[in-house]
């Protein structure tokens, strides 16, 4: 491939039939290191755009994406210039996924690595069962954010809904706005220097300009780690 070809993005127009399958097949099988960036036109809420990519490719989705956009992503830098449906970047392994609008339910579910940036609001269950990825929400996050999250960090620049961090394991949440309620076994903890630098680092990646000291840390009280017969099933 010559240099001029590399500078031109490869364009996939999803308004044409069968292009979604062609796009994903091309990303999985045809793209080679040094290959072009990719533009996806007219996504119009289609499901499974750029899922399962395992290559350091830049992908711009120019519009609203449907379910599972950038799911299982490895290495790729994927930007959705619009909103995302359920399960954006679910089970991501590495790379950077940026949603310029809002993200529906379960964004970043069970993601192991990489960074998910949601510039708008995140709906319910963002970062559910998170396993090591980082998530930065520019707006507010809905109820049950970080439910049973095991590892990784979630930064919420706005407010959080009900049951934040319910049944949290070792993932840590940093929240700047109001919290409607904490979930079972989640608690506020003091911010120490490591927390401030973590928030600073993630805000810099996301491109958000907030004072790290304006965030509060939420982490597991670890009370649910061991069976407590005296709790009488009440937590």
């Amino acid at each position, binding site marked *: 491939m010559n240099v001029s070809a590399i500078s031109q993005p490869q364009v996939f127009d999803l308004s044409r039939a069968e292009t979604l399958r062609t796009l994903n097949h091309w990303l999985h099988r045809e793209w080679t290191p040094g290959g072009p960036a990719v533009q996806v036109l007219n996504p*119009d*809420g289609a499901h499974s755009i750029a899922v399962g990519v395992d290559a350091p490719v830049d992908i711009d989705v120019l519009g609203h994406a449907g*379910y599972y956009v950038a799911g299982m992503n490895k290495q790729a830098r994927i930007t959705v210039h619009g909103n995302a*449906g359920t399960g954006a970047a679910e089970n991501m392994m590495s790379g950077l996924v940026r949603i310029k609008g*809002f993200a*529906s*339910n379960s964004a970043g579910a069970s993601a192991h690595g990489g960074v998910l940036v949601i510039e708008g609001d995140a709906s319910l269950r963002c970062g559910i069962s998170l396993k090591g990825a980082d998530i930065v929400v520019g707006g507010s996050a*809905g*109820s049950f954010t970080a439910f049973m999250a095991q590892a990784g960090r979630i930064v919420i620049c706005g407010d959080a809904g009900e049951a934040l961090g319910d049944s949290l394991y070792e993932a840590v949440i940093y929240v700047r706005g109001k919290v409607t309620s904490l979930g079972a076994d989640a608690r506020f903890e003091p911010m120490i220097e490591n927390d401030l630098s973590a928030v600073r680092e993630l805000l810099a990646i996301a491109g958000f300009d907030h004072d790290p000291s304006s965030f509060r840390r939420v982490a597991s009280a670890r009370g649910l780690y061991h069976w407590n017969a005296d709790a009488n099933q009440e937590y």
Partner: protein
Amino acid sequence: MCGIVGLLMKKPSWDERLGELLVPMLCGMTERGPDSAGMAVFGKPREGETRLSLFQLHGEPDWNRLMEAIRAQVPGQHRIEPSDRHALIFTTADPDLLRALLPQQFPDIVPLAAGSRIQLYKDIGAPADIAARYRFQDLTGTHAVGHTRMATESAVTPDRAHPFTAGRDFCLVHNGSLSNPHLVRRQLEPLGIRFETDNDTEAACRFLEWRMREGDAIDQAIEKGFEALDGFFTFLIGTADGLALVRDPFACKPAIVAETDDYVAISSEFRSLAHLPGVSKAKLFEPQPRTIYHWSRA
């Protein structure tokens, strides 16, 4: 899984386009609900006239015989607009008098809806086929509600497809499932409220319509619904005035709203809204859990 769609025109100049714009919304939700589909349209009322939507459940329809029986037994002016297995009767009489003839004399005909504005079509099969069979694209009106069904709670039959109706000018479509429809039914039947099917959504529909008939505003009725109805739901409700939308507190079932100066469009997913004119400039949002939204034609 099911698909819900709804459209309310804010300006009379858009009313002619209601069916034309709703059909791609409905067909766009085929993957969410490939086994049945339906649509309720609210049109302009005509002075002194009520509409009764009927469906021939089994056998071949004989609408002439039905009209002869109605004209012989119910005083008033009646006319019929048949459309395949559906028929829309316009009558100056109380529609309950017409409905009363059906169980004895026409047991294969089921009443689907009654009111001064509502007309309703539903059937089994692919949404695109049903839309073509009943010429949904030609329907006009101020607002409409549609549904594509993937049955989980009762059999795949036309009368168990959505929308469900109760009372007059009231309908409801549902994405989700209720865990206590029989409890609700046992609460309502002693009050004289009769059920047509064993479908869970019908219980929600009849509960909310009962509350509104008892004097609750739609918000109050839905608030009581939060207590009475257990399960997952996104409900889209059509009334003579407009549309109401609500999701359960866990909001497992999706919904998205696109609002412009010309219309409010509601769907389970954005892919059903992408074709709408001006949608790129629309205000797009997901309805919050346990929050009641309603829109009426000003």
